[in-house]
């Protein structure tokens, strides 16, 4: 795990502790995906965050809101440790982000209820296509469990039917769906809806980068990347104890989890 990503995970633990809330398992699951998008994939910078020619990132799985906030903080969008106000009364930051609080850009949609972000992203991609905006690409992060929502498949039908090549759906596949109505194999279903489907190691930045950059060149089809991830990846405790799906660390737990992140090793790093 590279040092920047480790420091983002550590930052997530600190913010969650300060705000006394968090979906740390989901955030840890998606951090490499978010980091990769903003570092070497998307045409996005703090300076062009409102440019009509930028790429858009739509967060459909709202549980990763804090992870997105931390990645954008690392990019320099949020200053003066404003993120330390996470979940405090009057803050711009909470468990689910509200786009109207970010008039200078960076947060493109308000997340929270599952099954909304991806259909909105498809509408956005379609708007960009008919306006012939000049190359913006829409990236969406959804959860595999979220794929149980009917609205996700309605959006797939539209994206495939209208051959929207300017949208990439990334599924953070941390096997949530295996505990629900299991729709696997997602790959076959997405292909049937007209998607070009790829798979990637969701915790390997190089693999993610090369897969996502391949998507941009696909013609006449929306793309889906099934990113295989592990809930809570980067901390042994978060990976094995599901009580961390929705809780925050106290002071002792914070120190313990930070040490785990610091010493975490992936076999192929």
């Amino acid at each position: 795990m590279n040092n920047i990503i480790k420091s983002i995970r550590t930052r997530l633990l600190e913010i969650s502790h300060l705000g006394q809330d968090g979906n740390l398992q989901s955030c840890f699951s998606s951090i490499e995906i978010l980091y990769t998008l903003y570092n070497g994939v998307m045409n996005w910078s703090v300076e062009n965050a409102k440019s009509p020619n930028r790429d858009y990132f739509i967060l459909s799985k709202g549980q990763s809101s804090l992870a997105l906030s931390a990645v954008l903080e690392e990019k320099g969008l949020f200053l003066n440790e404003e993120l330390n106000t996470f979940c405090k009364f009057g803050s711009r930051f909470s468990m689910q982000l509200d786009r109207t609080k970010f008039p200078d850009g960076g947060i493109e949609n308000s997340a929270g209820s599952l099954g909304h972000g991806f259909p909105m992203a498809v509408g956005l991609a379609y708007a960009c296509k008919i306006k012939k905006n000049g190359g913006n690409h829409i990236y969406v992060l959804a959860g595999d469990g979220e794929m149980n929502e009917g609205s996700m498949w309605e959006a797939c039908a539209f994206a495939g039917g209208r051959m929207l090549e300017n949208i990439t759906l990334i599924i953070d596949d941390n096997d949530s769906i295996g505990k629900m109505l299991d729709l696997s194999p997602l790959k076959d279903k997405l292909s049937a809806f007209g998607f070009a489907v790829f798979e990637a190691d969701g915790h390997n930045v190089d693999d993610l980068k090369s897969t996502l950059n391949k998507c941009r060149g696909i013609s006449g089809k929306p793309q889906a990347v099934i990113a295989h991830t592990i809930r809570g990846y980067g901390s042994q405790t978060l990976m094995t104890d599901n009580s961390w799906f929705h809780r925050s660390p106290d002071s002792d737990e914070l120190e313990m989890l930070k040490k785990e992140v610091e010493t975490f090793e992936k076999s192929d790093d």
Partner: protein
Amino acid sequence: MRKAMIKAVSDMIKNESDTSLFLVDIGVWAFRDILNDYPDRAMNIGIFEDGMVSLAAGMSLGGIIPTIYGISPFIVNRAMEQLKLDFAYQKLQGNFITTGASYDFATLGYSHYCPEDIGTISMIPGFEFITPGTAPEFTKLFEQTRRDAHPTYYRLSDHVNKTNVEVSFGKATVIKAGSKATVIAVSTTLDIVLETCENEDVSILYYTTLLPFDHETLKNHYNGGKILLCEPHYEGTLTYEIYKTFENKPIQISCVGVNREILRKYGSKQENDMYNQLTAKYIYQSLEKLLN
């Protein structure tokens, strides 16, 4: 009113390249030219209302103003969360034109009725709600609001008033001023209100914009706090707005409107009006009771 709507929306699609139309598999024949000539921006997207409303919100985010046309409950009930979270919460503009009103499709049964649409939409701050009583009123109100910054709901009925009124978005029209009571005629109730109250010493206020509600005009017609509220949707839906108008003043409200029940009678729209006592006779009786 549907013809006026089809013309206004078609003109919009023809003349404004940043607008779009989604049909919920209704009006396909009437909109056939537009669907044919502008297939990228006008489409019968079909029967997936909740995903469609989210898609429309995304289009709005991308600078294309969406208009959706469908039967009321399939938009306001099926896609309620999308209206709330994707449009109102995210402050996106869009137009939702519905047909069917409370029970225009009387023979289709309760699944196609929507006497609760204003009650439901009024729980979403930021939404505009327009309920014209005639075709020219729709045309004018649509023109005034379709590009504004808010999501806007248009409630169309096939049963329109004979009386056409000069209306303006956000304003009630004073049909007449009186002193003994104030009668609020909402949308398609105006004809039956006029039939019974025109020669009474009462103020008659005509409302076609329900959200935002015009408190100011009502405030100027206190008339002893006696209010007769005539609504073509569930009875008493606008009582909150009346209380809000006359905070700290005593008021007495009498309501005429659709019974608050699951409607199971079928038949015609007129028969359902009779059943719900949405009639000139009942309005007259209610006014008499209020005045005595």
